[in-house]
């Protein structure tokens, strides 16, 4: 039923793909892929019969093609993928009124510590938060695919080291950890007591700003 010669497949004569076909194939692959597709994977679509330049040009074409629609082509840590624009969410929410639950502060703080201080052990997290970290919190984040264990610290008890995953970046539409919101600078604390720190205006700033 589908065994006619496929006009899209270059024949044995190894015709190059036309730009039109490249865009069409890329588009289909990106629209159907369950995960972001890295450039190396996109090249597989053409069995290598495509240059990086052609690929990049086609991606640009695709991005432009979609820019006025409700979905957009974005680059995240795992590669390229389509997503709906956030402004469309209000409509999509009408289809499935139950929104995913918001994470508790405990989960969010744990996630932040892992994201910014990785790799960290549970002990490290507890030290920063000042309270015990329930294993439910870590399980929640692991189940979401946002953190995983990347090894064990070489100390007694060999505690597990956690780090964020590529999926975490992908789900936040980020390409790398550098794109996370920057941390507030910690003021120079311990030296501060004797001489006023050289970074006085800065430290003043921080303290002032926090007041409510």
């Amino acid at each position, binding site marked *: 039923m*589908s*065994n006619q010669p496929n006009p899209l497949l270059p024949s044995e004569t190894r015709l190059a793909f036309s730009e039109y076909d490249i865009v069409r194939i890329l588009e*289909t692959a*990106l*629209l*159907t*892929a*369950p995960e972001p597709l890295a450039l190396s994977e996109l090249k597989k679509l053409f069995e290598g019969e495509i240059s990086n330049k052609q690929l990049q040009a086609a991606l640009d074409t695709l991005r432009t093609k979609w820019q006025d629609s409700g*979905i957009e082509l974005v680059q995240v840590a795992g590669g390229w*993928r*389509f*997503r*709906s*624009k*956030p402004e*469309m*969410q209000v409509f*999509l929410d009408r289809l499935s009124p139950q*929104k*995913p639950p*918001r*994470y508790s*502060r*405990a989960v*969010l*703080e744990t*996630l*932040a*510590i892992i*994201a*910014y201080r990785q790799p960290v052990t549970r002990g490290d997290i507890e030290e*920063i*938060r*000042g*309270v*015990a970290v329930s294993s439910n919190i870590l399980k929640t984040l692991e189940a979401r695919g946002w953190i995983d264990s990347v090894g064990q610290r070489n100390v007694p008890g060999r505690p597990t080291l956690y780090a964020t995953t590529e999926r975490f970046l*992908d*789900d*936040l*539409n*980020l390409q790398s950890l550098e794109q*996370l*919101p920057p*941390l*507030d600078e*910690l*003021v120079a*604390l*311990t030296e*501060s*007591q*004797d001489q006023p720190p050289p970074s006085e205006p800065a*430290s003043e700033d*921080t*303290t002032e*700003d*926090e*007041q*409510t």
Partner: protein
Amino acid sequence: MNTLDEALPQTENQPIARICGQPLLEIPRDLYIPPEALEVFLETFEGPLDLLLYLIRKHNLDILDIPMAQLTQQYMTYVEMMRADQFELAAEYLLMTALLIEIKSRTLLPRPVTEEEVETDPRAELVRRLLEYEQMKKAALRLDVLPQAQRDFALVEVWIDHIAAQPLPQVNIDDLRLAWLALIERAKVNRHHQIGHEAISVRACMSQILRQLQSGKAVRFDELFSPTVSVTEVVAYFLALLELAKEMLVTIDQPDNFAVIYVKSAQPTAAV
């Protein structure tokens, strides 16, 4: 950028709890907390550091120069109240009490004037922890604001119709060649059976003719030959016809001399 009200986790208009049906919009300004609210209050904080930060920010204390007496007293008031109401208090809160008292007592001690080394402020470690915690607390809020897949945007995943496009095994000429070679090998080994060197075209024509005769009706001999075929094909068709007759697959009739020749399938009706 730092204009967020960091002291409390809740957004402004969202009640942190309902007590006797009344929404509790913020932690009470003074230290008095209705007992019903205490548990809620406790749950509002993520731990002793969080509570301390709240107290410091709430009372405009300088985090780099914490008045230990004041802070310790306030902290202990909360903790005592909570204990009095027999809430199960996380051990961390009690531990923090001990730490605060220790720091306070150390700050009260007279400083050894002759000390050569600069003595570190006993509060320094607490301040470091408070700042580090605050830093992460804010980072958590900012992370939560980032658009998130499934919550703030959806991912595109168009259905792939695997069933319609179920892959079928591919066969090429080489596969057939190899299969045939294997057969010949086996034939040579098993018996000295000679596999005929018959021209394929004749066999193909035999199939073709049988198809044409499938209806069971007699077909005019000349109709079996398409007018466009080449001479070799005509020969092949003719040989095929003879072969079919030999194998008793067709009957060939010619009512009279030089009359039209009819070819008919030898089977009653080809109801296959």
